[in-house]
């Protein structure tokens, strides 16, 4: 299975280890992985701030970079959601089912729904608290939203069940927003930080050593609060756990 | 052009396509024991359901539930202990703060503990002004959900009617639940034997 690896801008710059873990993990489950060089940004930050149209050139660039891949896979739920929802409005000569939005997957949903590995040969003997990010939950169905009367499920939990030794907890208010929200965290920084603090405290209350999830942007926001307040917990992208060594 | 015509003209030019009346894609829930569910949910709403025993009179039940009530207003002929005929009163203000009103309800709704009352007394003030209210409903008159409730014949013809679920309540001060905001402090639904 040939996969084009999509590495969002802030992962490229701030969390390259998440990119490496994604690459290794996809290889481990039998995918042939290519990384089209010189990727920058999908355009989500501009769009959430109210300048979706300014993301047009970036969308065209993404679409061209990944034109030859049947599967485009990236370790960020919110970026993938933006490509799926925003690109149909942005791409010139948009063709349904043909452009990158129709072929892009968040890495956990790709593993869970497409690759379906029976084992991961991973071991992570720690207690982790699951961060159900808003776009992952409410726009991608990585887990069932607490607002809806639907059967409980979590693709993240299903994948973590393949990891030896890991203990999975979820915070109270399991899918309440952490307050990142892109430009929101800047423009409404008082509320954003208040939301982030509350979220981190609820993760800590589970007794977990790590907060893990499928969105580095939420983790980055929470890590900023953890660092500033020197709190006893760390953030770690879920691919790094799924890719941990036995 | 009248305001009505102006509004209608704008509405007809809203550019919205016409959508058909939808068909539900579900079967409404049913309860194994609707009367038990009714009682449970009425209690959660702050009221209570009381079943009349076969050998009990309405007087007995009302006395049993409200032993201290002194002024009791009711138009029900079988209620011997009534002290006031609310229909004989000219001014509805006289019904305010009577200890107890005893009135007729048509049926209960299991899913929410509500009782449908179609006004059959002269002043509806009694329903809301009495300190406590007893609503008497026929035996087995409990429907499962509101879907069934609104289709009942009693909800087809009325001047004023109300689905009443428990006593008047508010949580407007710090979300603390308090009964008796303006209306009855206590509501008991009596189910006939």
């Amino acid at each position, binding site marked *: 299975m040939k996969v084009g690896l999509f*590495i969002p*801008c*802030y992962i490229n710059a701030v969390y*390259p*280890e998440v990119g*490496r873990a994604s690459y290794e993990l996809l290889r481990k489950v039998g995918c042939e992985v290519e990384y089209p*060089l*010189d990727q*920058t*940004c999908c355009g989500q930050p*501009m769009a959430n701030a*109210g*300048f*979706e149209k300014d993301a047009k*050139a970036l969308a065209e660039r993404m679409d061209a970079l990944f034109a030859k891949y049947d599967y485009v896979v990236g370790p960020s739920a919110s970026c993938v959601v933006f490509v799926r929802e925003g690109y149909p409005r942005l791409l010139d000569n948009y063709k349904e089912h043909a452009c990158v939005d129709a072929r892009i997957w968040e890495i956990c949903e790709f593993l869970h729904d497409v690759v379906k590995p029976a084992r991961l040969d991973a071991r992570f003997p720690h207690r982790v608290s699951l961060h159900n990010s808003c*776009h992952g939950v*409410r726009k991608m169905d990585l887990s069932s939203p607490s607002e809806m*009367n*639907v059967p409980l499920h979590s693709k993240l939990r299903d994948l973590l069940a393949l990891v030896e030794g890991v203990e999975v907890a979820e915070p109270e208010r399991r899918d309440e927003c952490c307050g990142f*929200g892109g430009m929101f965290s*800047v423009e*409404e920084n008082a509320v*954003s930080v208040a939301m982030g603090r509350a979220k981190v405290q609820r993760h800590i209350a589970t007794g977990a050593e790590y907060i893990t999830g499928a969105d580095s942007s939420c983790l980055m926001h929470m*890590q*900023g609060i953890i*660092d*500033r*307040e020197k709190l006893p917990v760390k953030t770690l992208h879920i691919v790094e756990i799924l890719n941990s060594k036995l | 052009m009248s*305001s009505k015509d102006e509004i*209608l003209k704008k509405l007809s*030019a*809203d*550019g919205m396509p016409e*959508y058909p009346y*939808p068909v539900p*894609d579900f079967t409404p829930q049913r309860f194994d024991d609707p009367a038990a569910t009714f009682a449970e949910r009425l209690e959660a709403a702050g009221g209570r359901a009381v079943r009349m025993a076969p050998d009990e009179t309405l007087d007995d039940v009302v006395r049993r539930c409200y032993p201290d009530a002194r002024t009791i207003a009711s138009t029900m002929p079988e209620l011997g202990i009534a002290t006031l005929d609310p229909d004989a009163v000219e001014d509805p203000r006289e019904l305010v703060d009577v200890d107890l009103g005893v009135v007729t309800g048509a049926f209960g709704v299991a*899913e929410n*503990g509500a009782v449908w009352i179609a006004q059959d007394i002269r002043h*509806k*003030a009694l329903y809301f002004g009495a300190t406590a209210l007893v609503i008497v409903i026929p035996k087995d008159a409990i429907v499962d*959900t*509101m*879907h069934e*409730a*609104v289709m009942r014949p009693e*909800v087809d013809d*009325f001047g004023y009617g*109300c689905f*009443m*679920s428990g006593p*008047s309540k*508010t949580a*407007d*001060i710090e*979300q603390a639940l*308090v009964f*008796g*905001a*303006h*209306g009855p402090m206590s509501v008991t639904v009596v189910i006939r034997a």
Partner: protein
Amino acid sequence: MSTHSKAAKRFVADAERMAWHDKALYAVREKRDRMMMTVPEWEGLRRLSSEIKRHTLSRLGHYLCEFERNATANGMVVHWAKDAAEMNATVWELVREHGGTNLIKSKSMLSEECGLTPYLEERGVDAVESDLGERIMQLLHRPPSHIVLPAIAVRREEVGTLFEREMHTEPGNSDPTYLTHAARKALRPKFLDADISMTGVNFAVASTGALAVCTNEGNADLGTSFADLHIAIMGIEKVIPDMAALAVFTRLLARSGTGQPVTSYTSLYRRPAPGKQIHVILVDNGRSEWLADAAHRNMLKCLRCGACLNTCPVYRRSGGSTYSYFIPGPLGINLGMLRSPKLYHGNVSACSLCYSCSDVCPAQIDLGEQIYMWRQQLDGLHLADPVKKLSVKGMDFIMGGRRRFYGGIALARAAEKLPRFVLENGLNPWSAPGRAMPPFAPKTFNGWWKKTKKDE
């Protein structure tokens, strides 16, 4: 900084109060969740409710006329008002014709929207709010901060002090039961002596010409029990086709809003009692224009349950008074923009795009998605924040070229060596009190890939 953001900063500064507000409202959200779980067909109900509203909106003129016909046949009098001014004038005319200056009101968001109470007060009418929360706000001379829980941001001690002054309650007693019953006593004469009663309308049933009014306190019904004139005001979107639709909405309304299976009172006014009158005013006030706006017409499906406020993490932590429109939260952000982008665009920032509002809405309104759309529209309306615009243009410029992007990261990495006070100041958008900057990695993923592949 947006108007909301500035005001929210002050609300957040009182950490204890913010935490209380957040917790109180989240508890309502949790009650709602428990209620939802008792209804297996919940999602089907939401879908049905949304589709009934859509159908009704698509034939709104038809249903309004049907309602008018049936309500008139039932003995009510129906008026039409194209805007707030006409509604207020119609009410005033009815009041004058009838005589009397004591008016008892039950909660109506439309009344707030049209500024009816101050309008009547200017004309010497004593318009008394009878819903406890509304009455507290009226006596405090402050607008409600929630559409269903008007006094949610007021602490019990404040109510105690207020009632001590207004109702001569015991000094220092702030027990909610005591205060509620004091208000009950104090409002009794207002109900009994009212010349006119006024209510809002939750649903107007076209097929029967009946008005449904939902309350927990019974204040609407007590109000209409004495005065011989009942004036009911409603937005034109409140009409529903029939009783079957009423069942759907009453199953959803209170469960969504307060976590009750139904409100204590769901009252249906169909025919005026002998010797009494019911006048209904159908108010447009912008709604027909919103209906023509395909991107935002869904807002007219709203049942006014308040669930989107309770679930909104931003509203819970910033309170109703930080929004410039009289309705706060996701609902208010959207309705404010429909009313006037120029006046109310300062609320559009108050959303982290978590979309919880869209998932709780009992009419499946895409509230979060519409806020996203409004953000896109701001630039075209010349209302975009110039600083934000500049920063986006800057981001766009950097992301637009690989050299600029990777060169930029190298620069930023170097900049990190600067002392912390240079980085974490007000000029750096990412720095906020309480959140540290993320450090850049020594090597980008792109750089690592290039090196690894070269080495392979």
